[in-house]
């Protein structure tokens, strides 16, 4: 065992596709670690995930990872329509990076997950999958949307069940970390919120988010003047904690082209 030199250890980031959000996150989602997104339903968690799996394909010089991505979804159906829509605008704005008949969707591998044990099983198959994909574009991003859905129904509220649940959390997160380390992957996990059960909002918050960056989005209905006809939704993104980021926040909006930060 030899120590790694910190000078050679670079922290690569995967761009979110929006300069304002990238600035907030110091360049994007870091490789070699897990990033968790926590938010209520309808806040735009899946939007970020889709957008990121497209932007990971950008060349490194443009903030991407020049890589394909693995998208594990637990909520059905998978939003193919939206992905296709995002893909069109992504391709038209980054046309010079891709050949004419190339479809970025080809480099997003989608897999559905039904239970937590199923997820573990899939992850054990991920190792050979990533290794064998080396001749093509390598996989450098894993998205799990959402991890919380796997844990919401199957477990009772008894100590034994809770223990089993938390041991599964640890298994999954350590497996993810080992994968992230081995292949220098960026891992993005989404989590849901529950009505207050304790000091931590996310149901998995205490366990999976340990020590990783958590980005929290929030919807705030703006209390605009009553004559406003269109109710404009203000969405906000918070960095809750991350070893390399200060606590900060930023507003964003979701358009047809994707998700963009708004500067005030």
């Amino acid at each position, binding site marked *: *065992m030899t120590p790694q030199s910190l000078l050679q250890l670079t922290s690569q980031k995967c761009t979110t596709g929006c300069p304002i959000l990238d600035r907030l996150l110091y360049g994007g989602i870091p490789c070699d*670690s897990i990033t968790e997104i926590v938010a209520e339903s309808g806040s735009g968690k899946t939007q970020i995930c889709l957008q990121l799996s497209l932007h990971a394909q950008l060349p490194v010089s443009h903030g991407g990872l020049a890589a394909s991505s693995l998208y594990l979804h637990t909520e059905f159906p998978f939003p193919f329509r939206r992905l296709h829509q995002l893909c069109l605008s992504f391709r038209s704005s980054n046309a010079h990076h891709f050949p004419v008949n190339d479809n970025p969707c080809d480099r997003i591998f989608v897999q559905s997950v039904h239970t937590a044990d199923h997820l573990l099983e899939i992850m054990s198959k991920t190792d050979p999958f990533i290794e064998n994909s080396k001749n093509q574009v390598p996989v450098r991003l894993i998205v799990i949307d959402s991890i919380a859905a796997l844990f919401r129904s199957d477990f009772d509220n008894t100590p034994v069940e809770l223990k089993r649940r938390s041991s599964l959390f640890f298994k999954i997160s*350590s497996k993810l*970390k080992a994968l992230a380390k081995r292949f220098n992957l960026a891992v993005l996990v989404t989590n849901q919120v529950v009505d207050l059960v304790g000091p931590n909002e996310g149901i998995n918050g*205490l366990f999976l988010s340990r020590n990783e960056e958590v980005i929290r989005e929030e919807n705030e209905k703006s209390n605009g003047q009553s004559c406003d006809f269109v109710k404009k939704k203000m969405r906000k993104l*918070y960095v809750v904690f991350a070893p390399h980021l200060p606590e900060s*926040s930023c507003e964003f909006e979701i358009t047809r082209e994707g998700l963009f930060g708004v500067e005030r």
Partner: protein
Amino acid sequence: MEIWRLPISASQRGKLISAGYTSLSSLSSISSSDLARELKVSESEAMNILKVASHSRGSETSNASCSIVEGALSAWDMLHDEESLMHITTSSADLDNILGGGIHCKEVTEIGWSSLSLIVNSVLKYKLTTAFGSESIIFMLIGGVPGIGKTQLGIQIAVNVQIPNDFGGLGGKAIYIDTEGSFMVERAFQIAEACIEDMSEYNRFLRKDFQECKIKMLPQDILENIFYFRICSYTEQIALINYLDKFLSEHKDVGIVVLCRVKVIVVDSVTFHFRQDFDDMALRTRVLSGMALKLMNLAKRFSLAVVLLNQVTTKHTEASFQLALALGDSWSHTCTNRIVLYWNGNERYAYIDKSPSLRSASAAYSVTARGIRNSSSSCKRIKMM
């Protein structure tokens, strides 16, 4: 003890010193006839000198060869040793204050998420000199909830241990064992930069001729002196800790380079891999305490500080859930000091949960862009709705 303090006549003393005998130990292995010949005195006189010498050697200390158990120290000697030991500052004056000056070497400290940063800040503000002063062994366990700043404190300590002796630091190196993948190089770089800035500011403040004591350190040098190990399973973790002995012996000070050796081991976090795959809790406890023993042994032998970061867990007692430090009660016996980091309203606090020598106290600290510093109202937690 030296020759001139022996209760013998002045002429004998003069003869001894001029013959090159300056310390008692130099007299320990010589025979009376040899001594008589060398000092040109009668053999009975030489015998007398030796008797006095061995008598005062015996009464002087109980630690050397005369002690019953080899290597045993009297409490007095230990106190004396400890006073000469150095502390690693936490950069937070308040935190250092409650820790009695910073993190001690030769001890194992567990830090829950709340306390390490407190320590870091206090030293820089008040007593940059004394804070880094002591090389005692500390086994310190620090624990706390996610996001409280455990990793920040770990990085800060790994950087602060390198503050040179001229600035009251230890001038040592650090071993950083990362089990969670939360160590960010860019963050370590930031903290190192701020640390160097603070040092030069201190320099300007205290010494007018900064020509002489210019800081030649670069953030890169600081990063280079952190030996970073990334651990992906508990078997690796145990293997690494077994290997550290060899690693430390190889990186011991050689000749003049006394300053450059490992002075602190940070394990971030000791818990993570032990929270999965262990169905047999008794086995887990045995493995953990074996590991703790090894770390403590290292701390003692190489006189370095060991800082363990721990996580929190929910404890189910009497139908209610409470936050408690992970790994159970038996684990909490293993560390010398235990610090718990917690949120108090919007402020981060460190609390000394367990320590044989420090009174329990708490102090506020904050995590800033420059690292861990004293609490200021500007660094509040973002209130989450």
